[in-house]
């Protein structure tokens, strides 16, 4: 197959992607697409971004092998790509720095962003502070309560945080409100969308800024093991960290790509955020992909212990990779994720984000499956997309730890 899973000129991945937005936004999306394409070919832009990644983000992120954790995954070999060690604590900074540079390139002075758990909001506030941009972050009122620490971080960084009281008061509604702001202020404002969803060019552009994860990992794993990994695993909410590590391996047919969705209380209970596993094709937030929706096409609320995966949509490229069979998508329940979370803490001294714990739980299952098939020497690469500092309260509540 061709790596062109890549989008066509209208931003389509097979039947997915595209643009389903108010006409008012088309000129801004065209401007953004042009800026992205020219920046990709501009060695000065690339050098500036690479310099920032080296001196600010802390790239390349390292690979850590975790043999004690791997004992609980059928004894396979497990490598972690440590995006949790990036500045601001997750992969989100890769995209944010790229888009903030594009904002300056377009001559805009204000960025707006949505955030669920607060990681993308914090990363956006960070980039805005670094580059002298005004920053407004929309966050569901429910999430501002669940993630009060990140709200404080954003404010310390100089951003304005606007609690969204519409609808379900979570990430979905924060995106709606950010899009309304953008429709109104598009001349001066860039919408710094935090995942590989939304209208074209966002799914392609955000992926391109995260590909560095997979590009680095490919070279690192080759150097360490002398071959490509057998399986790559990543958690999928919108899907930005997953596409970032998957994409440079799409042409390598021997490498299994597995996305782990948030199964919440279990997909059969209806209380989940496993959009590909439990949803159906539809349109949400400007793109066609899989959506959690009812019989009338109304978006259904998602449920997950992980605020960062608690989203009823998913990036269109993942929908396409699923349909053509290039990537597999599985659901991990809250309980399975928390078991893996605890295990990585206690076997390796690494506290992962609860989002990331879904990928760890997936690796435990897949490792055991491979061992049972006599492939106990397999190498599994996991994108350790974020650290768990922000999740201490949630984890303490879950495990009954008194704070």
């Amino acid at each position, binding site marked *: 197959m061709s790596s062109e899973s890549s989008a066509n000129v*209208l931003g389509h991945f097979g039947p997915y992607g*595209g*643009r*389903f*937005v*108010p*006409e*008012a*936004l*088309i*000129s*801004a999306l*065209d401007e953004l697409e042009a800026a992205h394409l020219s920046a990709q070919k501009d060695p000065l832009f690339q050098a500036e971004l690479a310099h920032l990644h080296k001196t600010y983000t802390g790239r390349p992120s390292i690979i850590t092998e975790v043999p004690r954790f791997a004992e609980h995954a059928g004894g396979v070999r497990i490598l972690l790509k440590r995006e949790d060690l990036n500045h601001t604590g997750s992969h989100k900074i890769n995209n944010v720095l790229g888009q903030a540079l594009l904002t300056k390139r377009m001559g805009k002075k204000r960025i707006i962003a949505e955030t669920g758990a607060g990681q993308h909001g914090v990363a956006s506030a960070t980039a805005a502070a670094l580059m002298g941009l005004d920053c407004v972050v929309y966050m569901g009122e429910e999430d501002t309560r669940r993630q009060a620490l990140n709200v404080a971080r954003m404010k310390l960084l100089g951003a304005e945080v606007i609690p969204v009281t*519409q*609808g379900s008061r979570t990430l*979905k509604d924060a995106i*709606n409100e950010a*899009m*309304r702001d953008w*429709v*109104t*202020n*598009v*001349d001066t404002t860039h919408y710094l969308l935090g995942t590989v969803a939304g209208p074209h060019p966002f799914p392609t552009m955000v992926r391109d800024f995260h590909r560095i994860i997979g590009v680095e990992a490919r070279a690192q794993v080759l150097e360490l093991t002398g071959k490509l990994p057998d399986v790559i695993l990543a958690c999928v909410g919108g899907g930005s960290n997953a596409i970032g590590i998957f994409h440079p391996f799409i042409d390598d047919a021997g490498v299994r790509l597995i996305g782990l969705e948030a199964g919440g209380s279990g997909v059969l209970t209806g209380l989940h955020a496993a959009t590909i596993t439990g949803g159906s094709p*539809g*349109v*949400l*937030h*400007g793109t*066609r992909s899989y*959506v959690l*929706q009812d*019989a*009338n*096409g*109304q*978006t259904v609320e998602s449920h997950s212990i992980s605020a960062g995966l608690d989203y009823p949509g998913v990036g269109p490229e993942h929908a396409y990779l699923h349909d053509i069979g290039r990537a597999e998508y599985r659901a991990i329940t809250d309980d399975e994720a928390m078991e893996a979370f605890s295990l990585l803490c206690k076997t390796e001294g690494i506290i992962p984000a609860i989002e990331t714990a879904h990928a760890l739980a997936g690796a435990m299952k897949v490792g055991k499956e491979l061992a049972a098939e006599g492939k106990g020497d397999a190498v599994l690469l996991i994108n350790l997309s974020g650290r768990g500092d922000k999740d201490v309260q949630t984890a303490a509540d879950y495990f009954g730890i008194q704070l």
Partner: protein
Amino acid sequence: MNSTPLAQLFAKLKLENRAALIGYVPAGFPSKAGCIEVIKAMVDGGVDAIEIGFPYSDPVMDGPIIQAAADQSLKAGTSASDVFETLAATTALGVPAVVMTYWNPIEKYGVAKFAQSLKAAGGSGVVTPDLTIEESAAWANAANSAAINRIYVVAPSTSPDRLPKVTAQCSGFVYAASLMGVTGTRTAVASGAKSLVQRIRETTSTPVAVGLGVSTQEQAHEVASYADGVIVGSAFIRLIQEAPSAEVGLQKVRELAAALALGVHR
């Protein structure tokens, strides 16, 4: 699609030298039966055509007033069949009517089936605020087969290159968004509205209606001086939301419709 009741209305009003007054309300607001009462009150007051909203969970083009109305309707369980029944009750009054809907409810219902059901309910067409012309192939086929109007929104930011491509896809009328923003009442009609309408007219002979932010007789009169239609939604809905009783709300809707209807005479 010059044969729809909506297209015929614009042709007739052109001879009367006045603009069409188009009233918007979401189906199921304030209730399914109450919505039809609101529509009757609008028509009693002098509204020429009705735009029925399909309430949607993620209405990014709508401001707080219509969002609240749509939420209320969705909480009561409004479905596609409720929308079509409301449409049928409206067209039974002899009033041209269209549905305004975000795209996903059409896709979920079935694109061809949606156009057919709309036609069966006597509807003239559909306003699609988040359907870009690039994504319109299936809808164009379905709407053409059903002989209904496709009404796209054009914005002040729509480029000169793009504008004729969008208006060429429109029938019934072209929906000109008066400003960069979401639905809601404004104290003044945006200054860009008039020049946008002029730009649209250079590309098409299809009638042009202006929406977003029109709420008073004076604003309606101003818009009617250069456009073929004036669309008012949030101003009606706010009257119902703020009324102490349903009767008072309907009376206020009737009064506003009458005032606006005077305004649209040139």
